[in-house]
């Protein structure tokens, strides 16, 4: 027998996975909120801080030279992880900051005016919704949305209707953080391209699972967060095509992004520095590079097969439990191992508390997607999300716990 994917070896890299919760082993199914960090990441950051830490791009001293090299190598490594060139990767403090940078810069550039339209989806995370609402409110542009079908897939027919001559921006998630469905990037890009609209991809939930080649994807700009791909908090990436980044003015300003500054006026460096004022997340960049080196070094095909099996086990298991309603239950699209659901008669918060007593950590609430929950008639749901370190046994522990929820809360059988 060949082992298709050595999950035990992967788990051994994560110190936190040995934790117990109330005497039960932790089953961490909240990776879509934030991923745990392998030892390689923790070590890389600490080693940097103990050995080379100093201000980068400055000064002649040896530490600074070493720190600068590690920092710029990190940029190349993380850019490579998404198929891109280093000059196309802007460090941000996270995906939210990246999306605000794009929307804010378009606002400052005066790229939108009354009558223009911005198109998002009904399945948006608030981070890819509110910055566009604000931009629309400031410019007089109109914000429209592509609706979601009952099965969680996007209504592409409606998208084709919506996206037209007035459309200036089409922003959408690669994978919704509630539905787990991989959206059809090529189709949406084609629609946007046909009207000359800019495309912005929220790759937060795809980056931890799918191999990304952002330049090949056809989108113009994309964001992701380090803390969701086994890296540190407080760092993320904004990727953009050369000519798109080049066309954007800075959103925020300060040191290290300038050429000449007088008391009256500043001139700015080209991308990526143009978008990186102030001291950068240096040790975090080094650690994020370690994360993607570690993750990218796994057998990605085997890893993908492992996660696909987890996804099926989770979804089929949930389907077979009485009184469970899945959000985004479809076989018609690719998915990642992430599933939100409602337990009839029991509030999500209570479900989460019950699962916690079994050691199972899930997320409850609206997951920063209130409009999507409203569309399904809910205010909150429970979300279980796996990562590459999740085992089939953990999924079973989770499913077993979910089966016990309704009887614990004294909710009768479903009619």
């Amino acid at each position: 027998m060949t082992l298709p994917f050595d999950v035990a070896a992967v788990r051994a890299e994560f110190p936190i996975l040995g934790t117990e919760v109330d005497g039960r082993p932790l089953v961490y199914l909240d990776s879509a909120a934030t991923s745990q960090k392998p030892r390689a990441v923790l070590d890389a950051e600490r080693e940097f801080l103990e050995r080379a830490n100093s201000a980068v791009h400055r000064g002649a001293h040896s530490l600074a030279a070493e720190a600068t090299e590690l920092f710029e190598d990190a940029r190349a490594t993380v850019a490579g992880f998404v198929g891109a060139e280093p000059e196309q990767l802007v460090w941000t403090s996270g995906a939210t900051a990246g999306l605000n940078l794009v929307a804010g810069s378009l606002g400052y550039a005066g790229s939108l005016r009354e009558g223009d339209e911005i198109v998002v989806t009904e399945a948006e995370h608030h981070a890819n919704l509110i910055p566009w609402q604000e931009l629309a409110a400031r410019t007089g542009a109109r914000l429209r949305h592509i609706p979601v079908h009952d099965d969680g897939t996007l209504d592409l027919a409606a998208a084709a209707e919506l996206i037209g001559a007035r459309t200036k921006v089409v922003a959408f998630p690669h994978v919704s953080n509630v539905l787990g469905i991989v959206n059809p990037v090529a189709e949406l890009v084609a629609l946007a391209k046909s009207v000359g609209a800019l495309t912005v991809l929220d790759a937060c939930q795809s980056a931890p699972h799918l191999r990304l080649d952002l330049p090949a994807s056809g989108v113009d700009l994309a964001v992701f967060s380090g803390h969701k791909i086994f890296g540190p908090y407080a760092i993320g990436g904004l990727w953009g095509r050369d000519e798109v980044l080049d066309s954007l003015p800075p959103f925020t300003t300060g040191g290290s992004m300038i050429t000449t500054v007088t008391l009256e006026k500043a001139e700015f460096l080209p991308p990526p520095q143009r978008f990186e004022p102030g001291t950068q997340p240096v040790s975090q960049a080094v650690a994020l590079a370690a994360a993607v080196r570690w993750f990218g070094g796994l057998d990605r095909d085997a890893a993908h097969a492992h996660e696909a099996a987890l996804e099926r086990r989770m979804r089929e298991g949930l389907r077979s439990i009485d009184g469970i309603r899945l959000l985004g239950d479809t076989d018609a699209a690719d998915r990642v191992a992430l599933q939100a659901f409602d337990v009839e008669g029991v509030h999500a918060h209570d479900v989460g508390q019950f699962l916690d007593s079994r050691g199972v950590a899930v997320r409850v609430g609206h997951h920063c997607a209130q409009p999507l929950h409203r569309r399904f008639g809910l205010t909150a749901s429970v979300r279980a999300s796996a990562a590459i370190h999740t085992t089939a046994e953990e999924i079973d522990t989770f499913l077993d716990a979910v089966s016990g929820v309704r009887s614990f809360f004294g909710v009768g059988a479903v009619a």
Partner: protein
Amino acid sequence: MSGLESLYQELILDHSKNRRGFGLAEPGAHSATVHQRNPICGDEITLRVDVDGDRVASVSWEGAGCSISQASASMLVALLDEDGGDDGMPKADAEELISKFREALRSRGQITLDEETFGDAAALSGVSKYTARVKCAMLAWVALEEGLRQA
């Protein structure tokens, strides 16, 4: 009693299903209607309080949320009804109850609510060990506090 069972005592699950005071009453002469929301989990409550001089004449509410938040609202109404008698509880007493309740819930398990004073709501003592749930249990009580200020 396991942690979970001390959190979700029978009495709590009962109150969360048979909710005392659920359904907003018609506003009286001196009433206030307060909306409270827990932005994190989406729990919400609309609570209406009628006062009669310096007494709490009646409290009714509507809302959705987890069993803790629902039970806590129901228990609050029960406590006011039972301790207030026909005239209703003096406002000052209600305010004192609320502040004692808050203190116990924030005590991380150090302070227990006594049944003598808090009636069924004493069953919520277990919540204080679950810091993430304290807000759920406080929701109705905070709404009443606000309502008494306004009415």
